[in-house]
């Protein structure tokens, strides 16, 4: 029997893959291995790590499954359900995910139709790390390029740039707390 895998190393690899927005086919490979009778030595510790990560990412990342991927998930579900209820739940969430909802979609336009993180950060007036965090949290809907990077549609970014460029007449400036007071008093008058 082969030696058991290093859980932490495997989990780390899976995390890197999922953080890099690997599609479900690869994640499914891990699961398929985990439920394969002759490979059950692939411990459920690894499996659980994967599922924990999947659970965090699934509804965002996998909202636009290809027909092939969908059929793979559907085919995997009956086999996985008896092994892991959590896995089955995650896969069902993937299947139930609304394609019009929040999530990362595949890039379907030419590369120059999308803006990179640096450009996006500049237009949003935040750091590139904040943009990455927004992508990770689902605050920004990204498009996954073939290279596996998330980008924003340039036409969406152009709208924000237009908004940023709108003039603000000169006048006094206030802190958020002062503005809240102004609003409260205006309403109480």
């Amino acid at each position, binding site marked *: 029997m082969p030696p058991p895998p290093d859980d932490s190393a495997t989990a780390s690899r899976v995390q890197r893959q999922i953080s890099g927005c690997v599609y479900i086919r690869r994640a499914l490979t891990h699961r398929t291995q985990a439920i394969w009778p002759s490979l059950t030595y692939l411990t459920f510790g690894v499996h659980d790590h994967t599922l924990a990560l999947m659970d965090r990412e699934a509804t965002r990342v996998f909202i636009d499954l290809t027909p092939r991927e969908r059929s793979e998930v559907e085919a995997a579900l009956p086999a996985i359900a008896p092994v892991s209820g959590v896995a089955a739940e995650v896969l069902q969430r993937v299947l139930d995910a609304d394609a019009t909802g929040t999530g990362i979609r595949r890039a379907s336009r030419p590369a120059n139709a999308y803006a990179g993180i640096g450009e996006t950060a500049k237009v949003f007036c935040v750091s590139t790390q904040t943009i990455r965090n927004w992508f990770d949290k689902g605050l920004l809907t990204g498009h996954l390029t073939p290279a596996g990077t998330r980008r924003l549609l340039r036409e969406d970014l152009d709208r924000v740039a237009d908004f940023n460029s*709108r003039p*603000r007449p000169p*006048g006094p*400036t206030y802190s958020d707390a002062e503005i809240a007071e102004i609003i409260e008093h205006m*309403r109480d008058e």
Partner: protein
Amino acid sequence: MLAVAVIDTSVFVADAMSETRAASPSRVLRMVVVGELRLVICEEIKAELVSVLAKRAGWTPAEVQTRFGPVFDRASWLTPVPEEPHHKVAVQGHSADTVVVRTAEAIYVSNRADLVAIPAKYVVSINTRHFPPGATYAGFVFTTPHDLVAG
């Protein structure tokens, strides 16, 4: 994110009168412009915005429209539901704020199934006394701009 949001006047005013455009109120409005937040608004909230900015900053209605046009263009304009006693309770007894929750409730009576179907719904305000963060009304969670877009 794809969330529905009713944005209180205070957020618009904060964008207009803040010292920086990098602050969270401005970030929230950019989320509306980019389509991540589906803004629900009413004429009463806009009228209040025009009034506040005229009085406090000397803006004309045209200047308000110029500044916030891209946000208004992306918004769903609804008519608030009529006021009832529970609306005042929802905003800690401040009757002037009921328009915000009444506008939120309007998505359920305006044939806007597209908005109702979006699970994440927020009332966004800087005024945490009237809109305590974490409190809910009609499926809308009260939150602040900072909490909504914290990076």
